[in-house]
Each structure stands twice: as structure tokens, then as C-alpha cells.
């Protein structure tokens, strides 16, 4: 029995990924799953967690602790028999709070690599929400990739300072296009629309967003919560659950992150490029190449 507590709406991509993974596990008959979303940052998180812990006593509670860090940790301490598995920028807490995060900097790096190759102007635009570490490391990895492909690449980053304002995101992207960007990385919704309108390539984020604009979205870093979920289910079922940092399960090696399928772009991109990409992917998977982690705000 699994519960999930999301601070934002499940339409928000970060929580959406967790939600989808848990739904899939439920569909597969592995768990029964309930959730609460739009809990916000105003103190409801702690209440919901306590209520759920008291009433339903689920085996596992998933969720995101950003903005509710203390509340989550307080509750977790009070219910040691429940596994708390939360997205967080901090470490795990004994005995029962495990943390995960969207460690998709690796595919972000790969995306950057591709973007740097695809850009003719050498200018690439990134539109992101807030400069928080989770976002920064993805953007920074993307920049590393882009500059590896083209040492002179100029990567412009705009923060729209909102998790949801697609109109502003689109406008930010158009501003970057006017500033010379010819490839865009859409950390937030709204950017792909701009790329589509301008006939440029774009990279999605968090999930495979090719469906939004098949000719526009080349690929993008994708986060998979399934490995984390599966691992936790196994641990809890086996009674071996302990508090831990589940970082690895959100990385490429364990299938927690990937580059979105190219959806036919394999054919339109140069064969060299595709090959280079695949070999670099392989290096990451085998641990031959480590993508640097940098959580400072870009620039």
C-alpha cells in the first residue's frame, strides 16, 4: 500500500514523473496507490502526512519535500514503521526517510552535446523556472555538453521565476531566438511552442515531450522513477528497507534517467552525430564518463 503527497499539482512535471511511475506500478498490480496533490507550502503537508500515517498506515509514502523539508522529516521520525521516500535536496534521515532527486544531468549533458552540434549560430537558449539546485545542475550539465560540442557555444539562460507561466516561458524563448539562439532547451512548458513557431530544434525535459511537436522536439533528458519505485517495493516487501540516498536509481546506469527516444530524428541527423551520441551514452552507462555535477546558478 503506497501513498504519495505532492506539494504541487500532478500536472507539474516533477511530481508528474513520480505520479506516473506509481500509477504504472499500480497498473501492474504491485501496489495500491492513493495520492494528494496541490498540498502547497503552507503547512498542509505535515497534516496530510500525519493523517495518512494514522489512518491508512501505508507501507510507503512517496512525495516531494521541497519547501516542506522540516515537516516531512518530523513526521517521518514519528512513524518509523512507514517508509518515507521523498524528493529532497538534502540527505536521508535515519531510520526511515530515503531521498531521491531527478538526477537527469547525464541525459541533460547528452542533450547539450547534441544541441551544440545542431546549433548553427553557436547560440543556444535555455528557459528554466527558478535557479534552484535541481534545476541548476541540469542546466549546467546541458551547458557542459553544448560547450564540449562547440567550445565557442554561447548558452543563454533565462529564469521565468515561476513554475507555471507558459506564456512567459514562450516569450523568454522568443527573446533568446532574437538574441541568436537557434536551439532551445525547454526546462519549462511554453518553450517548445516558441521553437515550433520559429522552426527550430528544441529539447524537452523530464518526460518525453516529442508528442507536443514531433518535428521540433529532438529529444531531452527524461527522468524515470520506475527503478526507484521498484527498488523500494522490493525492499519494503523484503523487510530490508533502510533510509538511504536513492540517487543512483535516478541516474542513467540504473535506468532512472535517459535520453528521450529520437523519434525518427536518427534518420534526419547525421549518422556521425548519432553514433557519437550513442557512444557517449554508452560511456556514461558503463561509468567511463562522469558528467560533472554543478548546482551553482549558471553564470
Amino acid at each position, binding site marked *: 500500500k503506497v501513498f504519495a503527497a505532492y506539494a504541487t499539482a500532478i500536472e*507539474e512535471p516533477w511530481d*508528474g514523473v513520480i505520479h506516473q511511475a506509481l500509477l504504472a506500478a499500480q497498473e501492474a498490480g504491485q501496489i495500491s496507490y492513493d495520492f494528494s496533490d496541490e498540498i502547497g507550502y503552507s503547512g498542509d503537508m505535515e497534516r496530510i502526512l500525519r493523517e495518512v500515517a494514522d489512518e491508512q498506515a501505508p507501507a510507503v509514502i512517496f512525495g516531494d519535500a521541497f519547501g516542506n523539508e522540516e515537516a516531512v522529516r518530523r513526521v517521518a521520525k514519528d512513524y518509523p514503521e512507514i517508509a518515507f521516500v521523498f524528493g529532497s535536496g538534502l540527505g536521508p534521515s535515519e531510520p526511515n526517510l530515503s531521498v531521491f532527486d531527478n538526477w537527469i544531468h547525464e541525459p541533460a549533458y547528452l542533450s547539450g552535446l547534441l544541441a551544440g552540434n545542431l546549433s548553427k549560430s553557436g547560440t543556444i537558449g535555455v528557459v528554466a523556472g527558478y535557479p534552484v539546485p535541481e534545476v541548476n545542475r541540469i542546466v549546467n550539465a546541458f551547458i557542459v555538453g553544448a560547450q564540449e560540442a562547440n567550445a565557442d557555444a554561447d548558452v*543563454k539562460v*533565462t529564469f521565468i521565476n515561476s513554475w507555471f507561466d*507558459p506564456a*512567459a516561458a514562450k516569450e523568454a524563448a*522568443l*527573446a533568446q531566438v532574437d*538574441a541568436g539562439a537557434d536551439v532551445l532547451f525547454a526546462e519549462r512548458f*511554453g518553450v517548445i511552442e516558441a521553437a515550433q513557431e520559429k522552426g527550430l530544434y528544441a529539447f524537452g525535459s523530464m518526460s518525453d515531450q516529442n508528442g507536443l511537436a514531433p518535428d521540433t522536439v529532438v529529444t531531452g533528458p527524461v527522468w524515470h522513477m520506475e527503478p526507484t519505485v521498484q527498488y523500494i517495493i522490493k525492499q519494503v516487501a523484503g523487510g530490508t528497507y533502510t533510509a538511504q540516498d536513492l540517487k543512483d536509481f535516478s541516474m542513467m546506469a540504473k535506468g532512472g534517467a535517459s535520453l528521450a527516444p529520437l523519434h525518427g530524428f536518427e534518420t534526419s541527423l547525421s549518422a556521425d552525430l548519432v553514433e557519437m551520441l550513442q557512444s557517449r551514452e554508452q560511456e556514461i552507462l558503463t561509468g567511463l564518463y562522469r558528467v560533472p555535477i554543478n548546482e551553482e546558478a549558471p553564470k
Partner: protein
Amino acid sequence: MDFVIALLGATLRIFTPILLAALGETLIERAGILNLGIEGTMLLSAFSGFVVAQLSGSLWLGLSAALLTGILLCVFMGLLSVTLGLNQHVAGLGITLLASGLALFSFRILYGGSSTPPSLERSFAQLALFKGTALEPIFSQYGITYIALLLVPILGWLLMHTSFGLRLRSVGENPEAADIAGLNVYWVRYQALIVGGALMGLAGAYLSLAQLGAFTHGMVNGRGWVAIAIVIFGNWQPSKVFYGALLFGFLQALQLRLQAQGIPLPYEALLALPYIITIIILALAGRNASYPAALLKAYRREGA
């Protein structure tokens, strides 16, 4: 130069929904009603427009649905504030809360919390004027933007040079005089709400059917509140409301464009600027601000 031209183009894109909403609010306030329901009205209109466009495959049907939603919500505002005579602030805030709640509630029910925003196959295309000239980047806009621009003189003219405008202003200035002159004060106010509601619906449609062709949370993100500030900024005159919306759009566009140029900015200061300017204008105009004299006052025929 290119920077300026592109900046102006972006300004127009950003200012369109705000201008439309502010023009709608102008009409409604000129008739004596402060409609704080505007933020929710825009969101629900954007949503209903999107849903209908997606289900029917017709953008025009979607557009109609958005207009209709705007109209219905404003008529509802009329029911509360004109017919029942309830406190306009509270009624308006109630409508914003209700309409936003309904939009997000239905969004969840219909789209089941999909984590990529549902989008349309096709959204409204842009229409380029002055093709091939330096002005083209400014005037590559969605049709709704041109409509909004045309509406500025049209509404100014409507208010000042038509019987509709005369009547509308009269119920906002002195409803009793309008009543005695044989006008149906309620009906005139409802007419203002209907036209204003259509404009708010159009503002919502611009976001979901033209600019993005998609619907998500945070679509409106405070643009309705901005519109209310701009109406005051514009002294209840369409032409000045236009300048207010332009200023807001410009600051917002400038902020994004300077960021794209890599120039770091206290963006919050720029975003807060229109609000602060409005307050300063109010303070300067003080008691001379030309509020419609009957704003906020429900009309009741005495002794009836």
C-alpha cells in the same frame, strides 16, 4: 535597432491579453461595476476555449466558447452585483475563486493529471503585416492582437460617440438620472458586462488558442489583477488604458530580453513597477481621479 524592433514585437504579444482584459474591465467599470472576477474569468475562458477547440477540432468553436464563458461569468457578476446588489469586491473575489476552482477541477477530471500539458493540433496562426519591411517583426502577431489594437479606438469611439456609450456612461455616473430618463439601468449594466465579458473571454482565448495552443496551470498568472491596475492607470479611458498595457508589456518584454542578452536584472522590481506607478498615479490624482461616480454602488430605485 533589431533589438528594439523585436522588443516591440514581444511587447505586443505580452500586452494583448492584458489589454483585452483591461478594456473589458474599463467598459464594466464605466458602467459602475468593479469586477474583481477578471482573473478567474480569464482562466476559465482559456480553459473552456481550449477544451471546445480540442473536442470539436475547430478553433473558431473554441473561441466562441471562450467568449461565451467570459460573458456568462460577467453576467453572473451582474446577477450578484447588479440584480442582488451584493458588495462588489466580495462578489468579484468570489467569482475569481469559483472560476479558477472550476477550471482546474475540470482540467483534472478531463485530462486526468497528464504531466505534459494537453495541446492543440493547430492553434491560431500569426498574420504578418508590412511583409519584408523592417517593421515585420513587430507586426507578426496573432489576429487577436490586431483585434485588440483595433478595439482601442473602437471602444473609445463606442463610449464617446454612440448611444450605447452614452447610456453606459450614464449608468456609471448617475444611474438615477438614467432611470428617470427611461433607461433600464440594470439592462445597460448587463450590456456592459456582456461586452466586457466577451473581451475577457477573448483575453483567455488568446492565451490558450493563439499564444500557446495548450492549457496548463498558471496560464493567467496574475494578468487579471494587472488589468485592474491598468484600468486605473488609464483613468478609465481606452486610449490611456492602451498606454498602460503597453508599459506593462514593455517592462515584461524588456526584462525577458535583457535576461536573454545575459544582463542580470532585479526582475521583480520591473514586474512590480506598474503596480507602484499605478499607486503613485492614484496618490497624485487623489480625489481628482475620475472614478465613474457610481462605481461600486448598486442601483436601487428608491421606495420601490
